[in-house]
């Protein structure tokens, strides 16, 4: 008899994808300004490391929050014993207010509709368990966050059916793409339970237009299915157009008292906006009382540490802190994004115009040897092993067009970002020549042969070398 479950022995955790392999290579040879200046620079990690100083200075001024104290009195005991899955009221209050503030206070949230979870990872899985049975499906616009393959499908048995988006219109969702995806699901005999969008988008770094949002709302209303809006990057909108959250879009259409209001659910987390992924703070927000009730019970499997809830309740209740943080953080993100965009432009590489997120969606189609995913993989490996940058290939995000890459800009110092831009520039120069396209093709073919050998050599040396 097979010893382990099917879940434990299958590949649905998705960890064999290139997205994770790049990380592994980085782990083996991580860049360090002093100790390993030739190492691989991590640009595949959507982390926000830009505003820790603001957090640290708040902590220095608020010792009680970390010391299990309230007004100078110890509340250690209370926190140590607090395992109520309804969550610390003061934390939920502060969190919904923070969420509202991020949305320019154009909407209000009720803390009773909020369920705390162990990160957005857990929030997304929990929503699947609540909304779909094994074998049912959710539609997701491509490209999408690779982790969804694990979070939405692995233990739940739910399927993902892609809504294909293309560069021809900036990867926006169209009505025909939605319909086509729905039909595809029918063909595969999959009952569609909903659509899941990430807004702002990972990996695109763009916010959805009002038209797209309205399209989605009408679509889910017509099909009587759910809409999940993963708004984990909502606090990272640093440029126009300004952010329209799903709640705002619904309210602007006066849909509060209709069926669809009950079928829209929001996922949030403090991992990106506040840069605290280690603290595992995620949330589900829903106006559907049954979903809130079921999700709350399920949150037992991944509650947020009371120690963390308390610390953050104090921090997020400090309105001076939150308003300063939100503004300053967005400013810094914009600056970084601009740096990356201009650095890439300098190397003759364009990006999708973006206004949010911790990354850019970079267009390297012109550097592909052929318009194929094999060529994309080749290019990715070159960039990883020769240029020493771990970036995420579009195929790992299920993009339908080869040649796009997600490149993160907020998880390193400015100097490191500059260095990565220099490396990219040298690399592009080495595989292209200015002007003569015939020469370029020949050079590309030659360099392909050369670099292929280099690449093969490099790979085999990795096979034999022990871990550094």
């Amino acid at each position: 008899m097979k010893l382990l479950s099917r879940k434990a022995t299958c590949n649905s955790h998705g960890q064999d994808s290139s997205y994770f392999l790049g990380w592994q290579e980085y782990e083996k040879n991580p860049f360090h300004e002093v100790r390993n200046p030739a190492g691989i620079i991590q640009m595949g990690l959507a982390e926000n490391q830009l505003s820790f100083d603001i957090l640290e200075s708040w902590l220095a001024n608020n010792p009680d929050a970390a010391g299990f104290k309230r007004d100078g009195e110890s509340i250690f005991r209370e926190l140590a014993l607090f395992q109520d899955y309804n969550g610390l009221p003061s934390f939920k209050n502060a969190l919904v207010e923070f969420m509202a503030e991020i949305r320019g206070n154009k909407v209000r949230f009720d803390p009773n509709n909020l369920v705390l979870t162990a990160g957005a990872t857990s929030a997304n899985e929990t929503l699947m368990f609540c909304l779909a049975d094994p074998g049912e499906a959710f539609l997701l616009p491509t490209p999408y966050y690779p982790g969804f393959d694990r979070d939405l499908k692995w233990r739940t048995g739910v399927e993902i059916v892609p809504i294909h988006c293309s560069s021809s219109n900036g990867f926006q969702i169209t009505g025909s793409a939605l319909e086509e995806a729905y039909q595809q699901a029918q063909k595969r005999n999959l009952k569609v339970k909903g659509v899941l969008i990430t807004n702002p988008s990972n990996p695109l770094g763009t916010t959805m237009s009002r038209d797209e949002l309205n399209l989605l709302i009408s679509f889910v209303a017509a099909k009587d299915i759910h809409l999940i809006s993963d708004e984990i990057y909502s606090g990272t909108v640093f440029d126009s157009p300004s952010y329209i959250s799903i709640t705002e879009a619904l309210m602007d259409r006066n849909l509060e008292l209709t069926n669809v209001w009950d079928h829209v659910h929001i996922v949030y987390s403090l991992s990106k906006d506040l840069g605290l992924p280690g603290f595992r703070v995620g949330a589900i927000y829903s106006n559907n009382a049954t979903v809130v009730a079921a999700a709350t019970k399920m949150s037992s499997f991944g509650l947020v540490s009371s120690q963390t809830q308390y610390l953050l309740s104090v921090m997020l209740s400090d309105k001076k802190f939150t308003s300063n943080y939100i503004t300053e953080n967005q400013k810094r993100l914009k600056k970084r994004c601009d740096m990356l965009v201009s650095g890439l432009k300098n190397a003759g590489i364009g990006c999708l115009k973006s206004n949010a997120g911790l990354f850019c969606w970079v267009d390297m189609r012109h550097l592909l040897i052929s318009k194929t995913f094999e060529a994309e993989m080749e290019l990715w490996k070159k960039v990883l092993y020769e240029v020493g940058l771990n970036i995420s290939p579009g195929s790992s995000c299920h993009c339908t067009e080869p040649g796009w890459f997600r490149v993160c800009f907020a998880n390193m110092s400015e100097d490191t970002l500059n260095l990565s831009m220099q490396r990219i520039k040298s690399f592009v120069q080495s595989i292209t020549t200015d002007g003569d396209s015939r020469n370029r093709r020949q050079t590309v073919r030659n360099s392909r042969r050369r670099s292929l050998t280099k690449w093969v050599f490099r790979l085999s040396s990795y096979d034999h070398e022990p871990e550094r």
Partner: protein
Amino acid sequence: MGFTSSNQHLLSKIATSLGHGEESPYFDGWKAYDKDPFNPTQNPNGVIQMGLAENPLCFDLIQEWIKKNPKASICTAEGVDEFKDIAIFQDYHGLPEFRNAVAKFMGRARGGRVTFDPDRIVMSGGATGANELIAFCLADPGDAFLVPSPYYPAFDRDLKWRTGVQLVPVPCHSSNDFKITKAALETAYEKAQEANIKVKGLIITNPSNPLGTILDRETLRTLVSFINEKNIHLICDEIYAATVFTDSNFVSIAEILSEDIACNRDLIHIVYSLSKDMGLPGFRVGIVYSYNDEVVNSGRKMSSYGLVSTQTQHLIASMLLDEEFTERFIIESAKRLATRHGVFTRGLAKVNIDCLNSNAGLFCWMDLHRLLKESTVEAELALWRLIIHEVKLNVSPGSSFHCSEPGWFRVCFANMDEETMEVALQRIHTFVHQKETVVPTKNKKLWRSNLRTLSFSSRRLGLDEVALMSPHSPIPHSPLLHART
């Protein structure tokens, strides 16, 4: 929301089922407590919470340690240099120092008789998350685990709800102090086979909840040879390991493995947590420790759904690496639990109420047979409601633990202060004296043997109802939390 009918078809079967177990009638006790919580000054006639297996007896030691070690909190001036690194660390392997610290603590809680490998430690959202995780790793929907009864009610939720796994009870009886017998295991296993249910493993809780007893070496060896013979897994929930308070002869499954025994180690897994031993349920520190590499590997990926906050990992790592502290803590905690247990059991003995002989856990397994009108679950529940509403004590009836004999109750003794314990005992004394005047006294021995014959025939009633409930506190308000609010 007025759209419940449209909700039903749009939600999953899991979400709309009762698999979470919270619709059970056993929540009457919690509700009664929530409505009318005891407070020595503000509400001296309120319900005393004795259904909550919490361990706050040594918080003073922990608080003292925290005060003396400000660096352990990354948010204090002393510790803030580490803040950034800790805050961005989301590796599901966990902080290495955290795993080292937990492995060390687990060894120390077992008297240093065994050591644990930090690389086999997988994090989870409390033991709740750990139990669900191990079920996902070892069993497919429809498969089953054997579980000796009486057992912790929330296993019904944790092991079954989202996993689709079944539980097959292995009944234990008071006639041999609820020990697990090979015969009972074999019978349960065969029954499952006959019903075409694939048994993937056996899950035990050692020390036991609700019994408060520890398994002896012989029983453990019997279990190991049983699972080896059937080639099924053995999951040992050792969440109460450090609550053994007299005769530290607690034998962990880890110790059995280190002895001369033929065993496929790939079948052995331990579930652990700091919620009981250290009294820190709020911090959600759950652990899956497996001797099976594949399970560690797969489990680690699954732990993404319930990682421990790094803020907490860091604090716990610092605390548990302080070996002088942990040694002192474990000894002192055991002492205080033993004292409490003594006070409580002696108090019960004064009115001739027996408890199962126990030396671990945060509760007693109290025998109230002679107060039952008849030996049925209904009578037990009637007595239980009496205890809640008239005696004003929230205790947990044995049927909620799937006990096969009516009349047993789990009563927690560690989650209140000494004065409250006195009040509780006083109320019990009063109640027993009152009841004696109503129920004609019988010869105790005769009563017992009658009970036994009765229990086998009348027991089967209410099993379905029993199967659904889970009075394990889903909303466990610490009485102290309540007192503040």
